[in-house]
């Protein structure tokens, strides 16, 4: 672990991302188009539909954004990384980068959705806490799955097939927390949900840190 290295890789990722502006713009456009489509289709959303849509859009936009984390550079470049970096540094940087990307996309979706369809969330603290934990979990799963899917040609299909069942528990918990924070349902055990989310994150992060160095060699 080396904080400076992690920062370097992280900054490099951002530089690469901004070099290909069209890719970033594509995802932003994808998100806004999706929100607009939903707005036109539904016209009026109930609080529950609103939270479902928010998370579904975040899920798919996040998939789009992270699918290329291990694909956008050439094999030789990765071989070069392999020789100079500790795999854990690389993983942490990638994870951090994916996390920031997903948070940005989530914020963007939230912004668009509140412009078009209002904002039913009342308990902002709970919503923020839950969302951050959930997004961290999403980014863990996506980082890991994008590594596994990277070596294939039809990797985006493979990525969704592998990732969606894996993130389902997180999504369900997120949906519950969102509906609770929008005061649609009363639930006293929401703290337990948050704890569970922390637990899931810990398990996921722990296992990818154990697995990544081995898989990275391939």
């Amino acid at each position: 672990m080396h904080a400076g290295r992690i920062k370097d890789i992280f900054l490099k990722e951002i530089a690469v991302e901004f070099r290909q502006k069209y890719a970033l713009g594509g995802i932003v456009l994808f998100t806004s188009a999706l929100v607009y489509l939903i707005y036109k289709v539904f016209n009026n959303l109930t609080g529950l539909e609103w939270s479902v849509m928010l998370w579904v859009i975040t899920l798919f936009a996040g998939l789009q954004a992270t699918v290329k984390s291990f694909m956008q550079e050439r094999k030789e470049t990765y071989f070069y990384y392999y020789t100079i970096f500790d795999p854990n540094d690389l993983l942490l940087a990638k994870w951090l980068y994916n996390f920031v990307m997903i948070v940005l996309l989530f914020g963007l979706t939230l912004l668009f959705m509140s412009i078009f369809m209002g904002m039913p969330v009342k308990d902002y603290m709970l919503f923020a806490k839950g969302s951050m934990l959930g997004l961290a979990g999403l980014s863990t799963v996506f980082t890991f799955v994008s590594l596994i899917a990277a070596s294939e040609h039809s990797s985006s299909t493979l990525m969704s097939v592998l990732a969606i069942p894996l993130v389902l528990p997180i999504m369900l918990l997120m949906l519950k927390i969102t509906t609770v924070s929008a005061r649609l349902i009363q639930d006293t055990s929401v703290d337990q949900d948050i704890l569970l989310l922390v637990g899931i994150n810990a398990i996921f992060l722990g296992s990818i840190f154990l697995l990544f160095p081995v898989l990275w060699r391939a």
Partner: protein
Amino acid sequence: MTNKSSILINGIWWKASGIIIFLYVLIGGMLVPLGPGVTAITPSNAVAGDTVVLEISGYNTHFTDAQNCNAWLKLDSNHLIKAYSIRSLSQKKLKAAFVLPDSFPSVAQVYTLSLVLDNEFDGVFIQPAALFVSAKTVISDALSGEWKNNFDIVFHERQGIFFPYRSILNETIRNTFFHVALWFAMFILLLIGVVYAIKYLRKGNYDDDIISSSFTAVAVMYGVLGILTGSVWAKFTWNTFWTNDVKLNMTAVALLIYLAYFVLRGMHQDQDRRAKFSAGFSIFAFTALIPLVFVIPRLTDSLHPGNGGNPALGGEDLDNTLRMFFYPSIIALTIMGLWMSQLMIRAMRIKDNILTR
């Protein structure tokens, strides 16, 4: 040349023992009779102070054979009312007349009484919430003479082995051996698969990948069968093929994850990378399964044992007679799973030999 792990156990004895144990479960599980129980009671409501004649339909009961038929209505262990007259219409039909007292020991709108039946053939058996008695408007403090307590009653005990009678489950309690045991066997096989996946990642021996994927394949087959048998069972107890039950949906997700595992295996062409990535995914999926199947269902109510007030396994749901067949069933299904995975392993080894020749 990859060296072979010693997962193949030679000899026929363990395969034979698997078959014999399964046969024991099949025969015993089907032949051991269900204990006596009550299927219907009319009427189900009464008013305090009335005389009620209950017509009781029994299941696996011997009302006409029995000489000493007795019936009580029970409020709690200290308060019982004995039937003043009992007449058996047939082996499965019984009429019992009770005088309900005016006064009850506690104040409530409605009293829920359970029915205790006892005879020397069937032993004692209880139907909970058999009669709802609405209280009279006047509640006196003095208890009238109908109430008796438990202590001076000698109950019969049924001879021989039998499975407990549960009102909705009825005979389907036997599915414990064929459906619930399937899930346990699935988890054992998945665990073996994951152990070999870890072994593969540590040693890089291709044979371990063959073993791991074979065990996972058999486990997934067990999982699919578990979903199918569970939905048949649900149809006859909860009256629907698929409920919104958390455990059901979570296991469906678990299956989706493992089916994705096979998609992943199918997509890779390169043997070494396929082995590596699928081993990694299978370990990750197994760790994801732990919160999935065990933790999340505990948060919400579920129809399954162990959730939301339903007794867990080891409680009242699994009595000793059921255990006599339940644990052997897990062992038998696991052995049969081992056998099937070994056949797969051997086939895949031959394939590997042909390819590398």
